[in-house]
């Protein structure tokens, strides 16, 4: 059935992704322990975003899903980003 199109991800690939994720976690902890001021949050969020992208595309198989689904997922994050921006504009100009 529809399953025939599903992609199988090898154990080796999954292990590699995990190692990258663990490495990124280590960097986050290292970066936040040195004081970079406001940059710290930016770096921490950028790394978290990268980790989220890796989990979504590999562990959650999005890399191999239909374009429709990938666009839908992207839209949710765009929607959230818009909500954040609008809220902060509201707070900044109050």
């Amino acid at each position, binding site marked *: 059935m529809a399953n025939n199109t599903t992609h199988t991800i*090898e154990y080796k690939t*999954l292990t590699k992704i995990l190692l990258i994720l663990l490495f990124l976690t280590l960097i986050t902890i290292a970066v936040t322990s040195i004081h970079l001021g406001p940059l710290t949050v930016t770096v*921490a969020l950028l790394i978290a975003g990268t*980790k989220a992208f890796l989990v979504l595309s590999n*562990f959650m198989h999005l890399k191999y899903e239909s374009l429709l689904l990938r666009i839908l997922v992207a839209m949710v994050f765009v929607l959230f980003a818009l909500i*954040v921006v609008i809220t902060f504009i509201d*707070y900044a100009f109050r």
Partner: protein
Amino acid sequence: MSEKTVHVDEHRDDEASKLGMWLFIFTELLLFGGLFLVYSVFRLQYHTAFHQSSLELSVAIGAINTVVLLFSSMTIAMALTAIQKNDQKRALIFIGITLFCAAIFLVNKYFEWGGKFHHGLYPGSELMSLLDRGHLLYFSLYFFMTGLHALHIIIGMILLIVCLFQVKNKKINTKDYVLLENGALYWHLVDLIWIFLFPLMYLIT
């Protein structure tokens, strides 16, 4: 027109059930997204208080839980790979490891929260009511967000236990494994939320 051929339609649409799971995941993402929004607004207003409060949390426990969750996320992805390769035994082992990791996470959380409770720090406690607004907001958000996340861990565990038995009964097999796929998606969601919770709650400066 000699013989009647019986045609049985299997009512199954894996694409649709996966899409349904994703739609549910979207609502979950926006639920936690809303909480992250509340967090960031108050963090901006009470910057120092949030920083001071976060020092009360143990980065070590948070880091261990991060590693445990990332690892479990990989093992559940491997369980799916195993079932796709028609390797029932390995699939069972991988789901088992994932459940074990989930249990470790909850035990860690129990000790973490237990320590706070022991010091009189819990929602509605006398100590909490004495805190100033910034600290109060941080700890309220901490308990609510990690609590809601822990609830998701428990729900995910129940879902994966169902998957475990279905794999055992061969209801989930190499030809029909969409339930395990959706269970795995839910588990990855739990991991995804923690990826943001950990730096924001434990590591803020």
